[in-house]
């Protein structure tokens, strides 16, 4: 495009030199200092391209790696801190499992409690959240939309506020207040929306409604349809919701901090305790423990989730059967 038409070249010169180039623009064929340089600029720019791109790519890598480092280094440092003999003297002081063992002996009750609370929370959200999500997705009334809005409130409000509300109303029931169920209730309030939303999304989207009509046409009552058609086909949503509920429950701190008693310390509360009152190495070892405990859970749930939707197996099967699809028989 450079210097392709004399008219455009003249216009360009006119733009760049508005004051003194009137004569030049009147006679576009007259040689001007800029026109011979323009064809030369083309090849040079083309030669410069690969290196520019290489620079860009290098820059992108640099930014990406720096960002990753920014996020990962503290995690690595924290893990290392939990394994070194003395954090302030650094790794040169030697590596040890002493802190981990110490944390386990002092806080293994928290591990079990956290798991129990998470399991109970999951059970309750499954029993209430799945039907609720289904009904909300089905209902077109204004009331259903209002309920949906209210369900999200515990996420929007600080956990502190929900916890205070629970304490004010139920704090007086001592047995309840002292039991892990009190924390479970808090966690249900906080995690239920995630289950309901995940299930509602699946129920609202897919052609679940037509599937149900199909089942009904074959004589299935509502309960049978729900058990044999709705639940199996809503499984991706249910698994996604369950994953969210479990991880949120295990990691929940705000609300749990307010609700816990010395006997009902969950993992995150214990973590805050150790950092606040013990050596940094113990706190860091606690982080490792947390990590070791939640990772298998997350991986298991993720694996289960992918498998449950049938997406992993389906994509494989689709590749196999794609040839057969052309065959009308």
């Amino acid at each position, binding site marked *: 495009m450079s210097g392709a038409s004399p008219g455009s070249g003249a216009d360009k010169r006119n733009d760049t030199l508005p004051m003194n180039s009137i004569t030049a623009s009147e006679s576009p064929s007259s040689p001007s200092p800029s026109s011979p340089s323009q064809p030369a600029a083309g090849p040079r720019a083309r030669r410069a391209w690969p290196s520019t791109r290489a620079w860009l790519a290098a820059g992108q890598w640099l930014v990406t790696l720096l960002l990753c480092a920014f996020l990962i280094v503290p995690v690595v440092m924290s893990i290392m801190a939990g394994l070194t003999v003395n954090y302030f003297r650094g790794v040169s002081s030697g590596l040890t499992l002493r802190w981990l063992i110490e944390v386990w002996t002092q806080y293994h009750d928290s591990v079990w409690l956290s798991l129990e609370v998470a399991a109970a929370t999951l059970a309750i959200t499954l029993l209430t959240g799945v039907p609720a999500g289904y009904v909300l997705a089905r209902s077109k009334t204004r009331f259903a939309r209002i309920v949906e809005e209210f369900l999200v409130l515990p996420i929007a409000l600080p956990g502190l506020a929900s916890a205070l509300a629970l304490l004010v109303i139920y704090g007086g029931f001592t047995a309840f207040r002292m039991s892990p169920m009190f924390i479970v209730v808090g966690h249900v309030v906080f995690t239920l929306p995630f289950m309901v939303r995940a299930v509602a999304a699946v129920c609202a989207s897919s052609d679940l409604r037509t*599937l149900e*009509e*199909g*089942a*009904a*046409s074959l004589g*299935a009552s509502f309960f049978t349809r729900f058990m044999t058609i709705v639940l199996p*086909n809503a499984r991706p949503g249910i698994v996604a919701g369950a994953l969210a509920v479990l991880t949120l429950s295990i990691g929940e701190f705000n609300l749990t901090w307010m609700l816990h008693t010395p006997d009902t310390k969950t993992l995150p509360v214990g973590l805050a305790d150790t950092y606040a009152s013990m050596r940094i190495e113990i706190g860091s070892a606690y982080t490792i423990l947390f990590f070791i405990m939640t990772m298998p859970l997350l991986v298991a749930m993720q694996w289960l989730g992918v498998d449950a939707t049938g997406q992993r197996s389906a994509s494989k099967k689709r590749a196999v059967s794609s040839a057969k699809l052309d065959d009308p028989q």
Partner: protein
Amino acid sequence: MKLTSVPITLTQCAKTFRGTRVLEPLNLAIGAGETLVLLGPSGCGKTTTLRLIAGLETPDAGGRIAFGDDDVTALPIEKRAVGMVFQSYALFPNLTVRGNIGYGLKIRRTPAALARQRVDELLGMMRLSAHADKPIDQLSGGQRQRVALARALAVQPRVLLLDEPLTALDARLRDTLRGEMNALLRELGITTVYVTHDQAEAMELGDRIVVMSAGRIEQIGSPRDIYYRPVNRTVAQFVGTINRLAGERRDGMLTTIGGAVPLPAPAATHGSVNTAASTAPANGPHEIFFRPEDARLADPASAQLRGHIDSTAFLGERTRLTIGGAAPEPLVVDVAGRIELARGTPVGISIEQDALIALS
């Protein structure tokens, strides 16, 4: 396989969704064993009518639906013993082909051995035996369609309801399956209501066709009635292609730009509702219609109408000519495929008198 069939009667069935009338009060009697096709453009109320019969919708107050002597108006679909094939098939992705076909039998607690035998029989009938244990997502469109049909038939329904069952398939497969479906429905002898917007399907499958438009029944009749004796323009224009000759009526002739056509005597119009034709003054503006295949090319000197070729379209078995200059609107005439005519060629056309259709 032979199924018992019942007649279906709809009495004053209307349907209103959120204050919008989608179906005007409708009376319909479907004979036992009859295949009735509901035909119409989308939004004409045909699917709503089917869903009323199925029990997926309830008619507005006053409407009544009966299967034989059995008033089913208040029964939900699961108690009506109908077989339904959905446009999307609604096959259960969590079950295999066998699981889908056997679902209804399982719900009815049919003894396992009997259920297995029935499913095997249907698998054989639908040529699906080789695919019995595959999940649904491994089947082709045509196979899915047959699974859906087998699943609906497995429970030996009183009535078979089909909601555009071939629409999701490509054209060639649709043609093949249409033939198969026709043979199957004749063999089963079950009362069938078939919804479609495809006139070829309606013509081939229907004992009678109900043409619907804007929530109303326009005409009920045999495929031939609908095609050759449409009662109004909506029907005539929706089913097939139709030409309009507008002109001046004088002495039993319709005179238009390219010539004159003798009009049929009022009595000869096959009893269709041609109030406009019979009450119109003997002289004055008038119009008459005919199908593209009912006109033939004739020597321009002796032809009823003279015009010229505007365009031709070779369609294989026939050539479709568009002829200008013969009537106020271009006329479409179908001739044998081998006839080749250049654009602008002067032509004459003649139309059999009893092929002329008078419409209100």
